[in-house]
C-alpha cells in the first residue's frame, strides 16, 4: 500500500505571535457584522435595496427559489372532471424502494377508465424522495412539484398522507369536508371511503 506522507506547513514567526491573527479574524467578522447592520438598517428605510444584506436567506419568510426539477412533496393530478388521474396500476407502489405507497384499487363506473384508487396513501415518514414514482407513472398522475418542503408532524401517523391531502396539497388532516371528486361517495368526515362497488367500508387510516 502506498503511503502518502503529509507535511504540515510550519507556522511563520508572525503567525506564531498569535494576537495579530486573532485581530485579523475579528476584522473579517466585524466587517460583515457592521456591513450587514448598516445594510439591514438601510433596507428598513427603503434604501440600498439593490445591495444584498447577507448570504443567509431569511427562511421561512423568504424561501429560496427551488430548481424546476426539485423533488418536493407529492401530489396526485386530477382529470378535467376533478377525479383522480391515477388508474391504480400500482407501478409506483411496486417501484418504491422505501415501500411507502399503499394503493387499493376499485372499479371505476366508466368502463373506459375502469380502475381508480379507492385508497392512495404515502407515508412521508418513510419516503426517501427518490422520485421513482413520478418517473414510472404511465398516466402523469403523481408529481413532486408542490414546492412543499416543511413536512413535519407530531406523530408518525400524521406523516401519512391520504388521497385527499395528495389531491389537494393545501389540505391537511383532519379534513372535515371534502370538495374533491371521486367516483365513489366520499365520506371523509368519518375518515372512511365508501367503495361504490361492494358497498363495503374501506378504512382510510
Amino acid at each position: 500500500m502506498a503511503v502518502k506522507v503529509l507535511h504540515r506547513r510550519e507556522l511563520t514567526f508572525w503567525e506564531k505571535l498569535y494576537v495579530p491573527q486573532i485581530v485579523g479574524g475579528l476584522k473579517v467578522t466585524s466587517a460583515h457584522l457592521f456591513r450587514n447592520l448598516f445594510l439591514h438598517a438601510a433596507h428598513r428605510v427603503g434604501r440600498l435595496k439593490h445591495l444584498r444584506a447577507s448570504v443567509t436567506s431569511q427562511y421561512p419568510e423568504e424561501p429560496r427559489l427551488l430548481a424546476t426539477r426539485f423533488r418536493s412533496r407529492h401530489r396526485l393530478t386530477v382529470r378535467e372532471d376533478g377525479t383522480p388521474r391515477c388508474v391504480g396500476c400500482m407501478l409506483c407502489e411496486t417501484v418504491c424502494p422505501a415501500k411507502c405507497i399503499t394503493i387499493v384499487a376499485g372499479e371505476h363506473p366508466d368502463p373506459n377508465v375502469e380502475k381508480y384508487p379507492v385508497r392512495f396513501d404515502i407515508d412521508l415518514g418513510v419516503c426517501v424522495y427518490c422520485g421513482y414514482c413520478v418517473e414510472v407513472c404511465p398516466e402523469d398522475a403523481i408529481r413532486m412539484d408542490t414546492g412543499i418542503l416543511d413536512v413535519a408532524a407530531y406523530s408518525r401517523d400524521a406523516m401519512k398522507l391520504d388521497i385527499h391531502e395528495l389531491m389537494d396539497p393545501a389540505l391537511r388532516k383532519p379534513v372535515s369536508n371534502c370538495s374533491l371528486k371521486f367516483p365513489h361517495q366520499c365520506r371523509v368526515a368519518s375518515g372512511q371511503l365508501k367503495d361504490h362497488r361492494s358497498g363495503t367500508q374501506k378504512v382510510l387510516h
Partner: protein
Amino acid sequence: MPALTIDGTAIECPDGSTVIQAAERAGIFIPRYCYHPGLSIAGNCRICLVEIEKYPKLQIACNTPVTEGMTVHTKSAKAEDGRRAVLEFLLANHPLDCPVCDQSGECDLQNFYMNFGLYDPRFREQKVKKKKAVSIGPHVMLDQERCILCSRCVRFTDEITKTGEFGIFNRADKAELGLYPGERLDNPYSGNVVDICPVGALTDQDFRFKARVWYLSSAPTVCNGCAQGCNVDIHYVLNRPHLNDGARVLRVKPRYNADVNQWWMCDEGRYGFGWIDKGRLTKVRHRGVESTWEQAMAAIAAELTKLRWNGSRIGVIASSQLTNEELFLIREIFQGALGAQVTAAFPTRPGFSDDFLIKADKSPNTLGTTLLALDGATHDAATLVDEALQGRIEALWVFGHDLTKLGDGPPINNVGLINEESLRELSRKLGLFVFSGTNENSTASWSHWVLPTAAYVEKDGTFVNCHGRVQRIGRAFPPVPDCREDWTILLEIARQLNHPLAWQNPQQIFQGLTEVLPPLAGLTYEKIGSLGAPLAHTPPAAEAAAP
C-alpha cells in the same frame, strides 16, 4: 420418426407432430397465441412463424407437420422480422390498457413485444372502439378491444366443455369476440378461459383489481374441493395486508398434470378458497373462554387418560379433509392407544358431479381414509353422534366437521338432522367434546375445547385422489398465528398420553405409514414429487400369496 434439425439441435419426433411440438421436445420455445396443446390447431395468430429451409416463405410452426431432414430456424432474422410484422398487426387495434389490465405482467402480448416488438409504432390511425369491461358470466370479464382473436376460448367451449357459448362475430377490424345471443358463460369450467386467454381480453372477476400479478407468490398444491384432486398453484401474497382486506390467497390456477386434470380445473375449486382467510379460528378456546395450547393439550390428555382408566368409550370423527399422515396418527393414537371408535365416514348429500373433473365426493382424501380402514365399515359419524346423544360415549373429538352438516339431506339412522339444540345436548352430556378445525361453525361454538388448526395450504402431507394417486399438498405458507397443524397437535397429545411417537414431521410419518400400509409401500415424498404417484394396487403380501 422423422429426424429434423431445429436451431442446430437434431431431434426425432413421432409421425404427425408439428414443428412447434418438435421444438418443445428440443426445449426450444416458439411464441404462440392461438396454439394450445390441449386444443385443436387453428393457426390464425401467425406469431409462431419460423424459417424452414427450402420453403420460400415463413411457415407457422403450430400447423406445419415435421418431415424427414427438415431444417428449421426459429431465431433467424427473417423469422423475427416476420413475428415483428405480425405483432404490428395484432397491436394495431390493441388498446394501451396495460396499467389497468389485470393480465399485465403475465401477458403474452407484453412478453413477445419485449422480445421482438416494433418499438417505434407506425400506426397513426384511430383505433377501433369496442365494448370494454363486460361481465359475461359469474366469473369472467370480457374486454373486446384487448382481444387478438386467437380463438382459444372459442375452441375451449367448443371442444372441452362442449357448451359453445363463444363466437367471433363480424369481419376484418370489426371482428370481435362475443357470446351467442342469449348465452352466458356460466358453465362449470368457465374460469379456464381466463387462463388460456393469452392477453387481457378475458379476465377474472374474482381477482379483478385485487393485486398486480407480480405481487403474487406461487406454491404448488392439490385442490381440496373434491376427490379428483386437481393439481393447482396457490397464488398468494403475504407482505401486502392492505390488499383484499388482508387475505393471503388471491387466486388459484390449475397446474398441468397429464394424469389428473391436464390444463384445467373447475370453477368450484378455483373460486372456493375464501375460507382460508375468512372466518378462521385463531385462538384456543375452552367453553368460550380464550385459553392456551399448553393448557388445552394438558387438560385434554388428562381427561382422555381418565376416561381410558374408567373404561369409558371415546369417539373420534376424523375427516377425509385430513392428510394421510394425520389420519394415520389418529388411528395410531385413538384407535391404537386409547381404543377409541374412530371414523372418517361423514354421510352427506353427494354434490354436483360430471364426467370430466368434478366428482360428487367433495373430500380430497376419501380413498386415504379407506386405505387406513377409517371409512366407517361398522360406524359412521352419525352413529357416533347418536351414541353420544344416548350417553354411551363419554368423549368426542371432531376434526374439522360441522356436525350440523351431517346427513345434509335425508335423515340418517336415528339421528335426523343435527341442530343447535342437539349440539347443546351433546355439549351437556359429553365429558369431553373437542373440536379441532380451521373455521368458525356451530360445532366449534358448542364444543368444550376449540383447537384452531392449519388449512391444507398451510401444512404438508399427502392426499389420495379417487383414482388412487398419492399427491403431496406441500405447504405454501405458515399457518395463521396460533394455529397449529393437526399432525403437531396429534403428536403432542400422544406425548402427553405417555405414548410418544418417534416421528417429527409429515415426511417421517409418511415413511412410517408406508411401512404398515402395503398399497403405499416404496413411496417417498421424493417419488411422489410435484405430480403425484399411483398407489401400488396389488399389495406385496397379496402378490406373494398368489401362485
